[in-house]
Structures are given as C-alpha cells and as structure tokens.
C-alpha cells in the first residue's frame, strides 16, 4: 500500500503553486483538506507519495515556495 506524506502551507496560493510545480515535475500529488491532527487551519494541504519526499521538497526549494511543515500520513488517505 502507498504510504503518504502531507505538506502544509501558510497560504492557499502557496499550496496551489506547489501542486502545479509538482505536477510539472511529474510528481503525483493530491490536494486534501488539511488533516486536523497536524493543524487547526481551515485550508488545503498537499498529499504526496512518501517515497517522493526528497524530490518534492527539492522542487519546492528550487521555486522558493515556503512550506509550513511536512508530516508522515502512513497509508491513511487523509
């Protein structure tokens, strides 16, 4: 089963940007409601395949997209 991670962002604009950049680099991602166990925020978070963690983080770093935190979700969908 796929193990997921989730990246939280400070703004909706940042998460939308991260999604676009990831797709452009061929990284499979999905926008999900921010899991409540990680944040009291009300927005959207970026879920990714945990095995792509280094790749996605380097994509974000290169584009200077500021993220809030990265969490391991395991096999739960959200």
């Amino acid at each position, binding site marked *: 089963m796929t193990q997921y991670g989730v990246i939280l962002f400070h703004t*909706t604009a940042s998460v939308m940007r991260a999604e676009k950049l990831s797709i452009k680099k061929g990284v499979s991602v999905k926008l999900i409601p921010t899991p409540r166990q990680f944040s009291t925020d009300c927005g959207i978070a970026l879920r990714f395949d945990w095995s792509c963690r280094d790749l996605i983080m380097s994509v974000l770093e290169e584009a200077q997209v500021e993220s809030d935190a990265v969490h391991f979700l395991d096999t739960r969908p959200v």
Partner: protein
Amino acid sequence: MIYLDHAATSWPKPIEVIEAMTDVLESAGGNPGRSGHRVSIAAARIVYDTREEISRFFGVSDPLRVIFTGNATHAINLALIGMLKPGDHVVASSMEHNAVMRPLRSLEKKGIHLSIVRCASDGSLDVEDVADVVTSDTRLVILAHASNVVGTLLPVAEVAVVAHQAGALLLVDAAQTAGVIPIDMTAMGIDLLAFTGHKELQGPPGIGGLVIADNIDSAQIDPLICGGTGSRSESEEQPEDLPDKFESGTANLVGIAGLGAGLRRIKDIGIEETRAHLKTLARALIDGLSALPDITLYGTLDLDRSVAVVSFTVTGKRVSEIGFRLDQDYGILSRVGLHCAPAAHRTIGSFPEGTVRLAPGVFTTMDDIQQAIQAIGRIVRS
C-alpha cells in the same frame, strides 16, 4: 449603437470572459481554499492560475506578489495608505486621476509632504522636472502610465531610475495601459503596479490588483483591511504571508475567472496587434476631427506617445450638449466632463468645462470611427 467609452469600461466583453464567469458559477463556485472539498479546490485553482498569468503578464516571477483588489483605485489606496507615514515626501504628476489625487490629499492632511510635477499642456512629462523635486526624503513617486484624459504616456522607466537613485519607490497606475501596452515591471523598474480588470484587460468590473515587484519588501505595506484568510486560522493576528496579508475576506472568484479569460484572449490575439488596431482607429479619429471647424484636440496627437484616448472641445458648444446629442441622435457613446481627473484638465487647459472623450476598444471598427466623425461634423455645423 457605437460604444466609444472604453477608457472608462471596455464593453461588450468577449464571449470567453462571459463563459468563464458563467462556468465558475455553475461548476466551481466554492470558497477558494477555505474548505478543502472539490469545488473549493477548483475555485482556488482558478484564483491561483489567474494570479500566475498576471505575474507573468507583468514580468514578476513570484505569483504570490499579485494582490487581488476590487479595482485600480483600491490597489492605489492600498499602496498609498499602506505605505505612507507622516513626514514622508511623495511626488506625483499633474496628470493623475483622482484615484491617486484624493488619497494623496487625504494623506497630506495627516502629514505627508506632496510635490506635484507639472506636465506640459499635451500631458507629457519631463523627467528632469521629476529629478528636480525628488530628494533623499522622497518615499514614493506615483505616475499614471497613460493619462485617462488624453492618453499621453508618461516616461515610467526613466522616472524609475530617478526615483531609485534617491532611494524612493515607484508606483504606476496602469489603468489605461494594461492590455494595450506591454508592461515588464522588472525591466521598467516599476516597484508597485496598480491595474484594473475592467478596461483593456477585458475583464468584468470589480476586479483589479496591486502587483509588488520581486525585490520589494512587503513588510513596509500595511493592509487596508484585516480578517479571515483561510490560513493560520489559529491566530487572531493578521498574517504576514503574501498574498493573504492583503486579501482578507472571500475573493471575487467570478471576477477573477473573467479577468483570467480576458488575459488569455489578449495573449492569444497579441498585445502588439491590439495596440496596432487601436492606433489605426485613433489616428483616423484624430485626422477626421482635425478637419472639422471649431474643434480643439488635446494631447500629443502622436499615437507612438499615447494610447487610443481622444479628447476634444468645440468652440461655442458645451461638452455635455455634444455628448448628449451623440448619444440621443446618433447612438454614439462618449464620456464628457472632467473624467475624475481635475488636475489633468487643469494641465491641458480644459478645466472646468472638461472635454468630450472618445476611446475605441478591441471591437471598434473603422466604420464606427467614420460614423462618429460624421456625427460630430453634423453637430459642429448645426
């Protein structure tokens, strides 16, 4: 009906714009980014994609530096009220719209020092005159990219150099140029750009924005309004993150969708092609009106130095009478009076009567222009 009031609002809107706005209400009308479900995400995607297209359109690399506002006036107020403090020195041209003049006059009462640089009677600005008043105390220089009264283009890039040498920033009001003149903020040295969606960007009324250049620290601008942003919800303090710092409250999703479609259409047609079309129309209009008796035309009358905005008066006739007769007898729609720019009309010598303003748009045809010239000819001779 011949609509020649595009300098106020472009109309009719392209079908792509109308469809984008209808589509968003039918299929993606959630609250962008607030809720995390599919229509909220679809809405957030439209907002982000438009933000990205605008940043590219104006030569800024970070899309998060595009701040959506209700219009250019709102964007200008955000920059002026958000940045200026008592004691700051500010420079503006005498061709500015009241969107600039009124907030500046209001801030003047609160202690900012204002220098207005007088433009020539054709609306043009000598960069040396700006250099003469800019000092090390100058915080901001504000320029209309083009006059809404006579269309004259102001030397934005040259003034940027003068402003930056003194340590000041440059705010440009691009209400009349966005969509018809290429604007590269980075290449032109524009620090802050206010634009509106409802003129030549072909979008609907109620959407505009302030674009903050990549190298400008947004911490020096306070938000006009504070509130919910869908981010950092655990905090009761306004976030510093862009664009949320300046975008509290639910966004104008329908307006943003329309603006995005308008922008894509401009890119498809080509900004140079659009400008060439408008230049041809304005040239014919100026030449046709010049041949009529008792007409005074204002501005440079040089379409390499102006956008397609033509202002005139007729000796012995009130501008309101001309505008009314154009509308009632010929179905030709103009805008008469002071065009919310008393300083500009003082500069060109048409205050307080104002002028009749004709501004063609992307859908205007040469036949429309010829009919307008004939109608004005009949009114002049009557």
